[in-house]
Each structure stands twice: as C-alpha cells, then as structure tokens.
C-alpha cells in the first residue's frame, strides 16, 4: 500500500526519471505502431498527393509520356484561372451562395424537424426514416428523381403549374433549383445529428426548467440549445465541408456548366473526363485547398480555444 501511495507523490513532486518513463517493450511497440501506421497512411494518401498537386499546378501536362514531358510554366495556370477562365469567378460565387444557403435553410429546418420528432409523437420513426431517406439514396438516383421534377418539357413542376421555366437550363434559376435538391438531402442529415444530440441532453435539465416555469420555446433556446454546443459545432463544420465540396449533384445535372459552376466540378472537368489539363486542374484544386484551409484554421482555432478555457 505504502508503495502505491508513494508513486503518484513522486510523479507529482518531481519530474519522472528516465527509468520510469520507459514503457514495457510490448506497449512501446503498440504505441509506435499505432502512431506510425496511420501517420504513414495520412502522409502517403493525403499529404504527398496534395503536395504533388501543388507541384503539378506549376506545369502544363496532358498526361502523355513521362514526367519529363511536363512543361514548367510558373504561375501561368493561376494567371489564366483568374484572368481568362470564364468559369472561375462564377464558381467562387456559387460556392459562397451554396455555403450561405446550406447554413441557413437546411440547418434550421433540420433542427426544427429534430425537435419535433424528438417528442416521441406517433409515427415518429416513420417520419425519421422518410426525412433521412434522401441521404441514403445514390446521387445518380437523386439526379434522376429531380430531372423528373425539373425537366422543362416533360417535368412534373411545369406540367402541374403549366409554367415554362427552364429549371436546369436557365442560369438564373438552375443554381437555386439545385440548392433545393441539395437541401432536400442535407436536411435529413442535419436532422439526424440533432436528434442524436437531443437524446444526449440530460432529462433533469428539462425538468428543472419546467419546474422553474419556463415554456417549451424558452427551454429550448435558453437551456437545450446552449447545452448542444458541441453538436452545433459539428453541424457547422459539416455544412462548410459540404458546400466546399459541392460537386456530385451539379456533375450529374450538367457537369458543372452554364450557371452551375462550382470549384469541385471545374477541377473534375479539367482532369477527370476527356480533357487532361493536369496542370490547370491542379491549380484549381490548389485554390480550393487554400479556401478550405481558411475554414479549417478557423475551426481548429475555435476548438483549441475551447479546450484551453
């Protein structure tokens, strides 16, 4: 007993000596493996390709022949992107609209749905499944479903309302049409996260609020919502990531052209399809990476500040 009591004392009063710091060989091996394997994977699969993208972005290469056929052009690609590439500035604008829209509508709607469904009402499970369903569907299918709604000549919306709106083709409306489709999908996602969050809220908090005479609305905004702060952070991060990587739906619809330009689709247009402008596409990807890192930095700063306080 005395020995056991002594050990922490020693640790607290003086820095541990080298002899005691050493873990048994097996543990050391475990720790080293657990650190190096994921590290190697991250470096190999994330950092090396990312750095190579940056390197490639200073070249012009169509993928024919060896790496020595890359023609180094300095900042030419970046210059072209901001000066003569007509799709770039609209793409930046669309990504920002996307972000703003996702932060406001699907998030609020998802939160509202979660609060309502959390009340154990009749058929709650059915509604949960229905709202979450779009998240599970494949994007090719989602593109097809909305094509049935939005088609100008044969689509449901125009047929029902006798209108002639070119939902996918008119660059002034197609972004909003796609945002509605995205929101349809994203709301269920946000709802699920908040549902999980609400289930985790201590029931005694609600009771205490009720005893103090707070009504439902007040309880939510003054007690529940602040308690869910970590969930809110997660949702914000997800929304930001989702809007920066906006790609799949516009790609299904028209490959990100004509009013649906987003950075992710521009990268794909230049390197994935028949076009092989690896340097130019990489430069676009680097721009995207830079924008993402701004948000990542902001997020990490908030998280760390929180941990410190």
């Amino acid at each position, binding site marked *: 007993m005395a020995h056991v009591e002594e050990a922490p004392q020693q640790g607290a009063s003086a820095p541990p000596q080298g002899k005691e710091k050493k873990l048994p060989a097996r543990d050391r091996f475990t720790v080293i493996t657990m650190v190096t394997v994921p590290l190697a994977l991250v470096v190999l699969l994330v950092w090396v390709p990312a750095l*190579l993208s940056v390197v490639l972005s200073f070249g012009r290469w169509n*993928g024919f022949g060896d790496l020595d056929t890359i023609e180094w052009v300095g900042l030419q690609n970046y210059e072209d992107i901001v000066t003569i590439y007509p799709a770039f500035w609209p793409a930046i604008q669309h990504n920002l609209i996307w972000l703003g829209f996702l932060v406001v509508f699907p998030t609020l709607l998802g939160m509202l749905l979660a609060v309502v469904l959390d009340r154990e009402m009749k058929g709650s499970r059915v509604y949960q499944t229905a709202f979450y369903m779009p998240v599970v569907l494949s994007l*090719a299918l989602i593109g097809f479903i909305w094509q049935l709604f939005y088609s100008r000549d*044969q689509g449901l919306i125009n047929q029902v309302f006798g209108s002639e709106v070119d939902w996918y083709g*008119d660059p002034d409306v197609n972004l909003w049409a796609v945002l509605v489709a995205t929101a349809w999908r994203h709301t269920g996602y946000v709802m699920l996260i908040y549902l999980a969050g609400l289930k985790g809220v201590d029931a005694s908090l609600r009771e205490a609020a009720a005893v103090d005479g707070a009504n439902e609305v007040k309880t939510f905004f003054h007690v529940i919502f602040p308690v869910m702060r970590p969930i809110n952070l997660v949702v914000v991060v997800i929304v930001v990531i989702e809007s920066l*990587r906006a790609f799949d739906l516009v790609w299904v619809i028209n490959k990100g052209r004509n009013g649906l330009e987003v950075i992710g689709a521009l990268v794909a247009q*230049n390197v994935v399809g028949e076009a092989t402008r690896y340097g130019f596409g*990489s430069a676009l990807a680097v721009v995207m990476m830079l924008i993402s890192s701004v948000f990542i930095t902001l997020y990490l700063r908030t998280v760390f500040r929180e941990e410190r306080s």
Partner: protein
Amino acid sequence: MSRTTSTAIPRSAVATMAATRRSVLRGIGLSGLAVGGASLLAACGGDDGPATGSGATVKFGINEAKGSGPAYDRLAAMAEAYTAETDTEVALNAVDHNTFQESINTYLQGTPDDVFTWFAGFRMAQFAEAGLISDLSDQWPIDGLNDSFKEASTAPDGKQYFVPASYYPWAVFYKKSVFEKNGWTAPETSDDLFALMDDMQGKKITPFAFGDKDGWPAMGTFDILNMRLNGFDFHMSLMAGDEAWDGDEVKLVFQTWKDLLPYHQADPLGRTWQEAATSMGNGESGMYLLGTFVVDAISDVADDLDFFTFPALDSSIGADALDAPIDGFCVASAGKNQDAAKAMVKWLGSAAAADAANAGADAPFISANSNASTSPYTDLQKKSAEVVGAAANIAQFMDRDTNADFANTVMIPSIQAFLKDPDDIDGITASIQEQAASILG
C-alpha cells in the same frame, strides 16, 4: 463518342459519383506519380502467349460493356468470327463506353490490350504523335476501304494508325408524314430553307428541335455552319488550331447562328437531345440536326424518319461536306502481341468482319467497307451510305477533330454562353481565342 456521353442519367454518372472531391484530388496526385496506370481497363494481366497465328491470343479492348446492346453484340460477333476464321483466340476486355474514353490515357500508357476500339480524328493523331499507337501503314491498303477512309486513318506524319469499321452522318432529320401532309420538300438552298422555316412557324411548328444540356450536341450545329460558310479546309484548320477564333470567319458563323436561333426551340440549355428528339417525334418541331442515333430516342417513329444534308448557305462553297464520325480500331504500341494484333486489325476492316458484326446484332452499323453487304441496313442507313459516299469532304465532329482539352473545357462552355447570350459574339470569340492561345500554345 458523342452518343453515349449523354442520356438523362449519363452512364458516366454512376461511375463518376463514386469519385468524391477528395478522391479526385488524390487522383491528380496519383497521376502525378504515374502510378495511375493500373486502371480498370488494364484488368487483363500481362502473360505472354504464343507469338501469332493458330493458338495465339489477341487481347481486344472494346468500349462497350457486356449487355449494353447492339454495339456490344457487333464487337463480340466480330471477335467470334475472327476466332472461327483464323483459329486465333480473342480475349475480350469489355469496358463501359465513358469509362473507356475517360481512362484512355492511363490505359494506353499502362498495360493495354493489343487491339482496341477508337475514333478517327485529332485524338487518334495525338496518340500517334505520342507513340502510343502502332504504325499500321504496312497493313494498308485494305480491300474495300476507299481513299477518304484511308485519309481519315492517316496521322499528320503521313502514316496510317487506324482501321475504320463504321460511321454515322450528322444531317437534318424530319418526319416524312409531316412533310407530306404540309407539302414541304427538303430545302436545297439557303432561300428554300428560310422559306420552309417561315412556313413552319406560320403553322405553329418549331422549325428546329434543339437541346444542348449535355454541351456537345450544339457542336454539330457549329461544325455544319462553319463548313457551309467558310468551307471544309477552313473548318479543319480552325480545328487544328491554325486559325484565329476571334477572326471574321468565326464571327460570321456565330452571327448566322444567331439569325437561325429564333427558328430553334427556346431554352436549349436545359434540354437533353432525347427530349429534343421527342419534340420532333411528336410533331412539335419540324426538323432536327443530329447524328443518325436520333433514331434511338424515337424508335417508335423510326420508319417515318428521313433526312437531308444541311443546305448550302454560300453557293460558292456548296454543301458537299458534313460531319460523319468514324469508329474503328487501333493497335496499342504497348500491346504484347504486335504481329497478331496487326493481322487482326486488318481483318477487322474487311467486309467479312462487317458482315459478321451485322449478322450478330439486332441493329446493324453502316460499314466503312464498300464490299460489305448492305442487305441488313435500314432505309435510313442505305441513304446515309449514299450521302456520305457522295460527300466530297468528311469531318469527324468537333470533339474528335480538335484537342480534347480545348473542346471540353473551352468550346462547350463558350457555345453554351453564346446560346445564353447570342448578342455577345465579340466577347465570346475573344474569350475563346484567349483560352485557345493558352491551351494550344
């Protein structure tokens, strides 16, 4: 290549959707490392078989997935017939059309099949220049393939790298019954055309069906207008990057197109070519400029369809050029079995191969070989063969005739920008020229 690049749900979508943004980025990095070679396409391993002749194996990469319809059936029938005739075993490697096309670079630089399906035109020439496909000039001439096909198989270095199998023309399609009922005839001059279009509008029929949601169909309109207004030679040298895109010639094309736009279906950018075809099929539109694959979308009225080539707009230039993309075969330089591959590719260009293909599928193709039997052809195909045979010059379609980077990342958005705002011709042509200068060097 145009055809399958676009249905309401592109086939590519399924494949592409698997690629999230991150995997796309990773893909870029990987191609940088040049380890992307091990792609789907190179699924077949690289074991060495006997050299050539009986008992040898030729690997045959085709751009139609198994069960994708007549196109696959024809290629499979060809492979089977070749085995039956020469005893050479053919190992089929069937890949989805879009996947094949989009991975072609890594495919050819990795471990490609010996013989593979490809297209005539700039991209064939580009592969030839990069040394990715084998010189086939020792296999030419091929009995039954005339000089214009030989020319289409020739790269700028004067050697042949391609063996044509089939083609399809782009023309103006219409319904015979509608034309008969209204007493219309196929226009032969620019005046005829405008008179016809005015009459159609008077009868509340949209003269031209038009859809460009997928970006490539409108290239066909640009091609034909450019060939009619500036001539075939200018068109080809523009495609090769030797003419200015902001010159008066190109501006004239856009100007003429702008004058024709009121005769086209409105809002083309949200409409697929299938939807546009449907509007002609049900009589809302009178005509549709498209490839013969238009039949696929309105097969219920296929027997009622007929076509004419786009009339002359400038009598000094005439109307003897058209787009008629040619499909065929190349031999990959990295293929293991060069001799056997060359022997097979030569046979694939023969009339026997074409007949085997057409006997093995529900829908025939139009053979490039003039000795092939025309008895399986539909009336439309018989007429297509006549029209193309009579044409003095054949182009391959913009996205096959010019640099793929330029066609896909510049021309598609620029033509769409023009259709959105037809008044800004100067701005659009200037922008095309700037980007052309940057991409084409």
